[in-house]
């Protein structure tokens, strides 16, 4: 049946049809929906792992056990899982194993714009790259055939525009696969002696994969009428076709590592002018130039940001359409902390106390944005704790009394624990605040090891954060409610002053969780409000300043306000009425 399907959902459908039995992933935009869709098939066991490395190792174990397996992550997640990946290239697989990786050119929701093709080249594993949902489904299935035929893990590269666009897809039936497990020490125990024997296998495999790439329908030449040729892949292929239709020659690469040298040479000989259209790094371009072929790539097209049809048109000398111009500056609308977000009160307090805040990856990274502006560093998952330790080691007691690490519950489980082990072991009096909103928030509400539920929402193991950090040797452990500004301020002051490391758990579930019951919206007594804008300092989207009969006053948007009551703690005249954060009547 023909249906409109999200690219990530099409990958999940491909997993189902390929007979995959095991999926383990850590959520990351734009890869998350692959696993969320896969879990809807009863034939596939799915889980959220604590991080990408664990996910990939678990999927490897499942492959070893003889079942087709999969793990998905965003581009930066593959860095975390690079360690198992590079040696799995040597061991190869038992049952087929495919690794989904989703790049984010344009950084819609990422901290960098790295190009995952580098990992495929460096790890010496094949990489397929679909350009729409139909290909996402088809390539997923082909990836398992390649994996088993060539004894290798296979990377399946998505990007934001393929992962998050829906296109017409046709589905097929599931075919089961099962392999026995056989003890093979020389293949699966990568001691130097065994690995030395496996490396030649890897090099030989690459030669065989190149021969496959030369003939595979994954790479195809589309002939045109003008003597211009473009070598391209993924969503860039769609932009090229959008601009030129069938007018020019296109070499569409579906397998982007290793590359088919002879096919490229043959294609180059068909045209007078040759372009490479690839987002991010000049990987095809450098490869083609090394073959001695003259080609235009990054001289005409940027290495930064994602492409579009107009960008491709202009770079290749075509005219792009012009739109209407609105000749007035339009205020930007950046993402913001939601109404009732539990992070808001905490960041307000950190700002008020003048803390140096080293942050991490999650919704709370928005704490760096105006008007709070209360975060000074964000690097990668888990970095807040390691960086705070290093910062405090170098700046000493003065820094220890004003610097905090802030990290979410899911990010803490991902890679914060090891940073904390360093604080415990090498001893700084660091203050670490775990923002426990009981969910992985930014990627759209995924369960994690601290929530007590699994990916299906069924009860699961639950790691107790207080017990965990106490077991690591931390004696100063406190729990605060971020809606309670007084408690926040007192506890943070006290723990920063202590000559010992402290863990503060700021606990309040995400306001968007379905089970969270909201209070009725607050309202402002216009007669009491003095228009001082104290309440505006928390950057709540529900509060704005309005003018009524010549008087400027705060106003609450009742459709957005969830009655968290944080603003009531800021008002010097008690102008807000409704239910306060502790559930009692405010006045």
């Amino acid at each position: 049946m023909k249906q409109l399907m999200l690219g990530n959902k099409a990958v999940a459908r491909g997993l189902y049809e390929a007979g995959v039995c095991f999926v383990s992933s850590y959520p990351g935009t734009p890869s998350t929906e692959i696993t969320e869709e896969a879990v809807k098939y009863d034939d596939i066991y799915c889980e959220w792992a604590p991080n990408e490395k664990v996910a990939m190792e678990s999927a490897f174990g499942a492959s070893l056990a003889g079942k087709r397996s999969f793990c998905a992550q965003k581009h930066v997640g593959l860095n975390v899982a690079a360690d198992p990946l590079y040696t799995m290239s040597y061991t190869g697989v038992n049952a087929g194993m495919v690794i989904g990786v989703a790049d984010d050119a344009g950084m819609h929701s990422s901290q960098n714009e790295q190009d995952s093709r580098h990992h495929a080249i460096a790890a010496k594993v094949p990489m397929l790259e679909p350009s729409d949902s139909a290909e996402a489904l088809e390539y997923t299935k082909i990836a398992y055939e390649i994996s088993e035929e060539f004894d290798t893990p296979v990377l399946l590269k998505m990007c934001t525009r393929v992962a998050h666009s829906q296109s017409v897809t046709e589905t097929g039936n599931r075919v089961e696969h099962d392999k026995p497990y056989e003890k093979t020490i020389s293949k699966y125990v990568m001691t130097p002696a065994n690995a030395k024997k496996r490396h030649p296998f890897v090099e030989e495999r690459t030669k065989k994969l190149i021969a496959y790439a030369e003939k595979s329908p994954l790479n195809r030449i589309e002939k045109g009428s003008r003597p211009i040729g473009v070598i391209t892949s993924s969503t860039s292929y769609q932009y090229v076709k959008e601009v030129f239709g069938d007018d020019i020659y296109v070499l569409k690469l579906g397998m982007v590592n290793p590359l088919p040298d002879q096919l490229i040479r043959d294609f180059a000989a068909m045209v007078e002018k040759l372009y490479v259209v690839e987002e991010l790094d000049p990987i095809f371009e450098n490869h083609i130039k090394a073959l001695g072929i003259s080609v235009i790539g990054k001289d005409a097209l940027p290495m930064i940001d994602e492409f579009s049809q107009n960008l491709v048109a202009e770079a290749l000398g075509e005219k792009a359409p012009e739109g209407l111009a609105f000749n007035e500056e339009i205020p930007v609308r950046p993402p913001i902390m939601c109404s009732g977000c539990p992070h808001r009160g905490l960041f307000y307090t950190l700002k008020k106390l003048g803390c140096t805040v080293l942050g991490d990856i999650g919704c709370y990274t928005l704490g760096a944005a105006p008007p709070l502006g209360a975060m000074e560093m964000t690097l990668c998952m888990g970095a807040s704790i390691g960086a705070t330790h290093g910062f405090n080691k170098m700046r000493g007691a003065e820094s220890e009394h004003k610097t905090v690490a802030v990290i979410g519950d899911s990010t803490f489980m991902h890679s914060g624990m090891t940073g904390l082990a360093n604080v415990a072991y090498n001893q700084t009096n660091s203050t670490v605040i775990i923002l426990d909103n009981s969910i992985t928030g930014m990627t759209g509400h995924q369960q994690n090891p601290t929530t007590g539920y699994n990916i299906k929402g069924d009860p699961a193991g639950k790691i107790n954060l207080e017990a965990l950090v106490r077991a690591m040797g931390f004696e100063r452990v406190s729990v605060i409610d971020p809606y309670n500004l007084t408690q926040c301020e007192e506890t943070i002051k006290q723990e920063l002053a202590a000559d010992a490391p402290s863990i503060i758990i700021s606990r309040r579930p995400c306001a968007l969780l379905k089970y969270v019951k909201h209070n009725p919206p607050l309202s402002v007594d216009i007669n009491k409000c003095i228009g001082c804008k104290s309440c505006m300092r928390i950057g709540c989207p529900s509060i704005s300043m309005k003018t009524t009969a010549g008087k400027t006053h705060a106003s609450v948007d009742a459709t957005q306000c969830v009655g968290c009551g944080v603003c009531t703690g800021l008002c010097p005249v008690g102008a807000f009425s409704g239910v306060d954060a502790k559930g009692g009547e405010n006045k």
Partner: protein
Amino acid sequence: MSTKNIMIVGVGGQGSLLASKLLGQLLLKNGYDVKVSEVHGMSQRGGSVVTYVRYGDKVYSPIIDKGEADVIVSFELLEAARYMEYLKPEGRIVTNTQTIDPMPVITGAASYPENLVEKMQSAGAQVDAMDCLSLAVEAGSPKAVNMVLMGRLSKYFEFTDAQWEEAMQAVVPAKFLEMNKKAFALGKQQ
């Protein structure tokens, strides 16, 4: 048929996902090649959001570029103006007149531009603006703004009410169907 482009813009959380789902269903059912593109993740949180719906005999690019949109459907007035450069010179804007202050306006760093409908018109756009929120409330829920807008959009399409209704049945939960149909009708007749 050459590819037609509909952009749906608004503020994260306003319900544009259901609108694009409905359009995708309608267009696919009626024999077109369709691509619908949206961005998930960070930008959901109160930020500016945009969804692209493209249809025709054969659609390649999943996104709409500047100067390509036949129609911009906007859930919020400022967002209509923000994306106006994506409109074809002869294109049309169908917009809700609701305004939601972005953070720079909330903090006082910027002000919300005034007379946006007139300004968009004088810049050359055909603008069909209406208070969709009131009509949605009249239909039974402020969340039905999306169906009010779809009803309005339907005036500029060749599809019959029966075709829209069939698509609605496929994407709207049964218990909300009547309310959504009412919202659609209010948007269309207003």
